[in-house]
């Protein structure tokens, strides 16, 4: 322990003072660096939070206009010369209404029908069905003048929402100066009313933006999640129970564990390829069906559920198991009577979160065929259907501008569902959380 040179003596007071000066000299610079470093951290969090606000703000900004729509109520003279009472669907009501509207304004249509085509572009093709249905139900109306309500066309609707501006040069906007003048006239006559866009929530997809809704996709997503939950929950919980409670600790269990961790990190599109090859091409299950979608999402959700279940099983103290075993319960009875019920809140929380994640998953759905236009509301597990995220993708790709606001609205619906599911998970955790 006697190292050769222990420097002698105590430092002189002068040396001590010099040292203190030196320490002080560096201090300002060090604190400046400290401040900068802290600022970088705050900035990083600011970027993340700011981006989230920007994202949500932009989506609300783009999407809130989709929640209301404009209806045009035109008086229509049910011309007996043009309407076949036996077959009202055959009548070209759109042309009829356009001509009557032009006549009211005292405008003559030309040979090519340019004016009436322009007029027809202002209201939705839905008008035809509204009028035809009315005549079918009440044939007596033929020969009368009846007010017919129908959605405005998507472009006219956008004009009243302020999305199409007169300041834009006429050749760069979808509506001509004349059409805008007509719309202003209709508005002044009180024919245009604004109301909640119920079509968005009560209809399936449509090629006409003003008639398109998310209901079909919502039902499709719900059916898919049902299949996912029915398959992934029992399998995931079962697998976790086996690995945590029964599996002999060894090489194979270890391998399964590594395997599950890796599965959780496999890109989702790979699951889409698996679904395409296995369920559609090999097992000939119907393309784009909730059944196949649910199966693919179930395989994706499986590792997450296994991991969540295992960690909540681990959190149950061994003393509970020992107490039950000491009472003479078998291993299985201990598990199903004591351990699993205690771990259930954690299992459910993990399951809901992984379901919420599956709800937003898009890429695998595209590969199993959910990229095509599916009108209407799906009624079964093996019918082609859309899903909310794939609907968002399809609408985003659509060329009509009116689909943009509806895409944002569909995103808001999707996020609302996810928020509800996550809130349920949080509530569940708060309500049943147990600290050992």
């Amino acid at each position: 322990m006697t190292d050769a040179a222990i420097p002698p003596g105590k430092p002189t007071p002068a040396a001590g003072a010099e040292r203190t000066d030196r320490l002080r000299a560096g201090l300002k610079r060090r604190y400046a660096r400290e401040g900068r470093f802290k600022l970088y951290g705050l900035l990083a969090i600011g970027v993340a939070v700011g981006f989230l606000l920007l994202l949500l703000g932009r989506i609300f900004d783009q999407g809130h206009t989709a929640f209301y729509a404009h209806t045009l109520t035109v008086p229509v003279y049910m011309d007996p010369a043009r309407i076949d009472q036996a077959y009202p669907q055959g009548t070209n009501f759109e042309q009829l209404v356009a001509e009557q509207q032009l006549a009211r304004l005292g405008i003559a249509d030309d040979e090519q029908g340019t004016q009436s085509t322009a007029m027809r572009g202002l209201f939705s093709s839905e008008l035809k069905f509204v009028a035809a249905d009315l005549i079918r139900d009440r044939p007596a109306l033929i020969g009368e003048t009846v007010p017919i309500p129908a959605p405005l066309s998507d472009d006219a609707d956008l004009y009243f929402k302020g999305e199409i501006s007169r300041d834009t040069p006429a050749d760069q906007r979808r509506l001509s100066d004349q059409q805008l003048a007509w719309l202003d006239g209709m508005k002044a006559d009180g024919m245009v009313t604004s109301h909640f866009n119920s079509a968005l929530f009560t209809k399936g997809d449509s090629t006409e933006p003003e008639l398109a809704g998310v209901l079909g996709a919502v039902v499709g997503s719900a059916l898919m999640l049902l299949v996912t939950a029915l398959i992934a929950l029992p399998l995931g919980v079962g697998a976790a129970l086996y690995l945590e409670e029964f599996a002999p600790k060894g090489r194979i269990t270890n391998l399964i564990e590594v395997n599950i961790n890796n599965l959780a990190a496999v890109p989702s599109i790979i699951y889409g390829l698996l679904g395409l090859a296995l369920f559609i091409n090999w097992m000939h299950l119907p393309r784009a069906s909730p059944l196949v979608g649910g199966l693919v999402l179930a395989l994706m959700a499986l590792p997450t559920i296994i991991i969540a279940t295992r960690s909540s099983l681990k959190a149950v103290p061994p003393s509970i198991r020992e107490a039950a075993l000491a009472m003479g319960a078998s291993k299985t009875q201990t598990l199903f009577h004591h351990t699993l019920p205690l771990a259930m809140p954690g299992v459910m929380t993990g399951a809901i979160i992984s379901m919420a994640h599956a709800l937003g998953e898009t890429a695998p759905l595209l590969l199993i065929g959910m990229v095509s236009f599916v009108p209407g509301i799906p009624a079964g597990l093996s019918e082609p259907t859309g899903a909310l995220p794939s609907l968002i993708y399809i609408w985003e790709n659509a060329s009509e501008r009116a689909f943009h606001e509806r895409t944002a609205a569909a995103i808001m619906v999707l996020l609302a569902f996810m928020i509800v599911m996550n809130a349920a998970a949080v509530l569940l955790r708060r309500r049943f959380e147990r600290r050992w």
Partner: protein
Amino acid sequence: MTWFFLPILIVASIAAWFGARGLAERRQRGIHAHSRPAQFGAWALIWTAVPALVVLIAAAVFGPAIEGSLIMGGAPEAVSELDPLRRGAFFGDARAIGAGQPATQIWPAPYAELLPAEGARVAGIGRMLDLGTVVLAALAALLGALFVFSRIRPDMRARNRVEGWVVALLFVSSAVAVLTTVGIIASLVFDSLRFFASVPIFEFLFGTQWSPQTAIRADQVGSTGAFGALPLFAGTFLIMLIAMVVAAPVGLFAAIYLSEYAGPAFRATVKPVLEVLAGVPTVVYGFFAALTVGPAFREFFNGLGALLVGGPLDGIGQYLMLVQNQMALVAGAVMGIMLIPFVSSLSDDIINAVPQSLRDGSYAMGATKSETVKRVLLPAALPGVAGAMLLAMSRAIGETMIVTMAAGLAARLTLNPLDTVTTVTVQIVTLLTGDQEFNSPKTLAAFGLGLTLFLVTLALNIIAQRIVHTYRQQYD
């Protein structure tokens, strides 16, 4: 048909449960038996349901192969002589016609004439197999139930039997996870091999021309398309790089601030916000990238270009004027934002795993917080942070929706972030979402890309998880 059989099976199993329970109750009366009557019920239920389910699952998995060989066996000569891809398409259409749906393409003679008859034959084979499956399953259920009912005696240890079954079922559940991996590998490898049979693997990995579009007409001579995937790898790499440039520093600094500087209240507010950011579906990020970030970036660069045109940097100005919405920078930047919460929560865990004694040691030396972080915590956490970054890279490479919606389709070998590039995942989606028959090289190419993607992400994940695991053990 099997869908109608399932409810019947469920009812039968429940009936078996009640029946066995009642029988056991009667036979055990007055005797101290090992197992409760309900356990006999459960035993009967399992033996009724499981054998039938095994038959049904086996039929779902192996049925198609049997059906395929039956269809092949009776095929007319003209059809047998077709090359495998066309033959597959022919029977696909025959199946559609047999089910009363239209064919997907117009067949020349003599195939058009053969289709209706073949359709009927194929449908007949399908019906026969369905019927056979159901009969076999019903028989299995019956035999299983008989087996149990013949053994209901007071000294029978039904509980042990049931528990054995439960453990077996749990084992099967965990085997599904493994089977998923096997399934992924099998489906990718199988179709990739078929792809590499027509496109040499070397050409695929190192070729610089990617234009699968021409391959739609596979029957035409000399238009097999070009499948050199190097531009896709370059595009994927470029976008991943941009994403990491955004996500790595921001995520790491956010994690450092949260774990070392923030008070409990601040943490409790910011962490949920980051979780929300992590929970936003990628299709939403894609929408935002395509309709907000893309146009904003284009306007910025076009404006910048307009300023430079005519000046000394005229060439650059001209180029910037032509920048499009879809550029690598947009997809990469938005993907980077998406990865911030991922990087920050992983790094947070890792920084927190550094023992407090090291922080104490540094503070006791008179180090400031930032000095402690930079000189002690980060060097100590380096392996863990590196693992987290690898996981984030794997995420970025496999991410699909943002790039599909914001990166573009042009396969270009470039490292210019303002260019339109395409990625492996974008091409997989593009190749598989068009309307073409399944067996063309174009669709098979998607599986080749999928296999490459799977192997690369798997390697990254395994390495990352090893590193993180070893790192955590060091401080346990």
